[in-house]
């Protein structure tokens, strides 16, 4: 071993993180700390200072000799040979009890890490369960991710991409490796470096905080999972025998997971939602009935309703109690339990046509990973009493397709144009990008997620009506009326603010659309200049102006969104348009 790995213990290093975990989780009445793959034993002294006995093990003789010279126990082992290495470790410990074991920067240097971890786990179990602290470099650091997009993979003498590494770890990869060996993680003390040793070349837009490209990549990486700025994962594990491959994991995953929120108060409509699902032309789905704050005694009723459709159907239905939180909470619980390739929301008062699942499935086969959006249709309903005095509802309007048949991202930035029952989301957006429903939003949580997934994944339109979104008249317990106007406005503002805090990925042809909006604004602005000097206006002029102002209204608000964005700055004086509308109203009042 060359001196390139001769590191000393210093505060603010990975070694401090390791020693901190050892002190916190070691077996209190045991005395020995095993440092497996110890190198030059950077943590030996701090361990000894706590009154513990340090024993180092490594392949390289130079490190062992150095440790022995400093008065520590140390033995040479070849970790690539698991059995003899583990035998040597056991022999070195003898009758003593192990307080903890550590593997710092060791797993990435050996091809048989799982075997070693399994052997240590068996030793730990035999000793009563001492903990294991592991530190490994994180190859999913944002610097590595950004440089891969630049086509760079810079192997270095030491560091995250050390030339001698033979294994590379992400957070999930480490979790899987340790879990397979029978360890369960109980605490993290990751060593973070926003600028890792891979933070070069200087000036690269993908690496520089504040550059839109970096900020976009960082936002994706941050949301996708832990470890964006972690230089080394430092985690502590305890041995735990676990049964592998539960039934739920081994069953073939369906195409779609249907998330059905219910508060158990709409027996009439939930029966119909279930009926419509059981009637689907494609039964390639599972149904999670998310019973939100439903008394435990009532859960049996939900299970009964599903069971009436027979075992083939009810075998694909799970009733999941969810307590607390707002409208987003049950959806997030469902996301965690979902197994389908796609997720769709069907609330207990909506109803679907026979090809709802089939249509999603057909289009996902052609555009896998995109959001699948159907043409929305809505129908008015209100509570009613049915013969026999039973609670029901009555239809108050024919189905209407007021919302756009095709998805328009800019339009959706302004307001939601897609009810939850009219789109399906790729589960990958939740699993791989880490997107979740925002539980701080009392309403429009579906709009928020639709926007965020659409921005990343894109949208494919089916051009078919496959669901009926029920719009309850006033007096019902629909979210439209349960939540105040203030809550709706605040939720909308929150979504806009969240989007505005990051660069946006807009789909092709967005610039054309922005230019078109901008052009409308300019037209209205010139109209204002024209009318200011024209004196009194006739009735026709008023109608014309108001009509133009109304047309412009949505355009203006959409442009406002663009204008406020950090990455899409539109500099036209569009506030003048808002003034124009007020001005027109004022003129009319005075005439």
């Amino acid at each position, binding site marked *: 071993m060359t001196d390139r790995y001769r590191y000393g213990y210093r505060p603010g290093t990975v070694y401090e993180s390791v020693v901190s975990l050892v002190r916190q989780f070691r077996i209190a009445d045991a005395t020995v700390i095993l440092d497996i793959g110890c190198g030059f034993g950077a943590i030996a002294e701090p361990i000894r200072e706590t009154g513990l006995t340090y024993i180092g093990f490594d392949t390289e003789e130079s490190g062992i000799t150095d440790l022995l010279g400093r008065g520590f126990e140390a033995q040479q082992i070849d970790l690539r040979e698991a059995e003899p290495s583990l035998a040597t470790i056991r022999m070195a410990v003898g009758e003593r009890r192990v307080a903890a074991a550590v593997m710092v920067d060791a797993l990435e240097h050996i091809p048989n890490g799982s075997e070693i971890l399994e052997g240590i786990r068996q030793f730990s179990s035999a000793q009563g369960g001492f903990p294991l602290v592991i530190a490994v470099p994180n190859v999913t650091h944002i610097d590595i991710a950004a440089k891969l997009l630049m086509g760079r993979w810079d192997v270095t003498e030491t560091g995250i991409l050390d030339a001698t590494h033979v294994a590379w770890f992400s957070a999930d990869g480490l979790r899987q490796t340790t879990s397979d060996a029978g360890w369960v993680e109980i605490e993290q003390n990751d060593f973070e470096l926003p600028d890792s040793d891979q933070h070069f070349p200087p000036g690269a837009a993908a690496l520089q905080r504040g550059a839109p490209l970096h900020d976009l990549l960082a936002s994706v990486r941050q949301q996708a999972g832990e470890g964006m700025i972690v230089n080394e994962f430092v985690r502590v594990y305890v041995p735990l025998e676990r049964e592998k491959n539960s039934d739920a994991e081994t069953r073939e995953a369906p195409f779609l997971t249907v998330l059905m929120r219910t508060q158990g108060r709409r027996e*009439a409509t939930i*029966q*119909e939602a279930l*009926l*419509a699902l*059981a*009637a689907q*032309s494609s039964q390639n789905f599972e149904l999670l009935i998310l019973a939100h704050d439903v008394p435990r005694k009532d859960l049996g009723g939900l299970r009964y309703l599903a069971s*009436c*459709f*027979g075992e083939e159907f009810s075998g694909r239905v799970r009733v999941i109690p969810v307590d607390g939180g707002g409208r987003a909470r049950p959806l997030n619980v469902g996301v965690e339990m979902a197994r389908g390739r796609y997720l769709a929301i069907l609330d207990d008062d909506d*109803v*679907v*046509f*026979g*090809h709802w699942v089939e249509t999603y499935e057909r289009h996902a086969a052609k555009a896998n990973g995109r959001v699948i959006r159907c*043409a929305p*249709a809505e129908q008015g309903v209100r509570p*009613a*009493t*049915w*013969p*026999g005095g*039973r609670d*029901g509802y*009555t*239809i*108050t*309007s*024919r*189905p*209407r*397709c007021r919302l756009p*048949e095709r998805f328009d991202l800019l339009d959706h930035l302004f307001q939601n144009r897609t009810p939850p029952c009219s789109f399906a989301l790729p589960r990958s957006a939740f699993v791989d990008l880490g997107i979740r429903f925002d539980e701080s939003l009392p309403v429009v949580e579906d709009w928020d997620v639709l926007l965020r997934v659409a921005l990343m994944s894109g949208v494919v339109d089916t*051009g*078919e*009506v496959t669901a*009926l979104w029920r719009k309850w008249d006033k007096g019902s317990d629909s979210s439209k009326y349960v939540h105040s106007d203030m809550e709706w406005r605040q939720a909308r503002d929150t979504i806009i603010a969240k989007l505005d805090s990051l660069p946006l990925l807009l789909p092709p042809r967005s610039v054309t659309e922005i230019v078109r909006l901008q052009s409308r604004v300019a037209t209205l602005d010139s109209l204002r200049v024209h009318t200011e000097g024209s004196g009194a206006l006739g009735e026709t002029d008023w109608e014309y102006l108001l009509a133009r102002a109304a047309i412009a209204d949505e355009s203006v608000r959409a442009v406002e969104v663009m204008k406020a964005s950090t990455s899409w700055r539109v500099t036209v004086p569009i506030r003048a348009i808002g003034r124009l509308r007020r001005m027109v109203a004022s003129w009319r009042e005075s005439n």
Partner: protein
Amino acid sequence: MTVAADPAASPGPSAERTTPEVSGPLTSLRIQTVLFHPAGGEVERLFRGLGNAVRLAKGQGRLGPVHLAVGDCSAARSLSHDALKRLELQAQSDGIDAVSYEFFGENLGSAAGHNRLLMAFEGPFVLIINPDVFASPHVLLELALPLWDKRIGIVEARQIPLEHPKDFNSVSGDTSWASTAGALVRHEVIDAIGGFDADSFFLYCDDVDFSWRTRLAGFRVVHQPTARIFHDKRLTTAGRIQVGQAEVHFAAESALILAWKYSRPDLVTRWLDMFTQSQRPGERKVAEEFRIRRDMGYLPEAIDPDRRVGEFFGDGAFAYHRFSYDD
């Protein structure tokens, strides 16, 4: 032709084994449907839904022997021997005691097809159901609820996802007519009116006429909103129900005949004029054919001169509609 004995009429040994006692009116039940080139999986879905309903009702001791009769108006047999065998096994496991399949060899239309099947009906009730329907598990239990009143001749199920807009009394359930997409009919109704008027109605309005004659015979027709059936209709992106040209044709023709039969010459004249001047060739053809039938004396005898049951609203609604799919 295969026609199984109707266990609804005379419970066989298996029925006696499985349902010694039945509480409620459905001591036995005949279910019948008429196929016409069914879509893939449609018949299996129909059987699955009915199987759920029969299993649930029998499990509660509220249903006696059940015979499911299938008539087929398609150009060729819709069900192969093997497919039929599979359906029979599925039905049997759900508690349906007998399944019969009759290939008509010609397109009789739904009215004549059902009449043909009704010839073997001997029990107290028949459930007439469309093949593109998926019944809810509770549909039989719910349809049976109003039957304590012997004056009720037909109990109509509620269709989802597109509910029929016709009005019904929110207390009694009384309604102008019942759609036979899913309707339970008392045998005495068949005895009284003799089935569908297949000579006048080929595909549409046969159930309106059937219902109105039922009411003329002194029975009530009620809608039971808690008896749900999923009727596989689709919407266009304009929010309209998807209908084919044939449906438009037969609906127009049937409306004219209905107006004629229920003594509304004013409507006949108006609609004939409207169809004659229509830009749509199909509607002009309907008007032409109607005149030929009238001139040759092929139209039914006009009944209900006092307009006791015939209800005509707007251009083609045969009850007051709570909302319109056409506005």
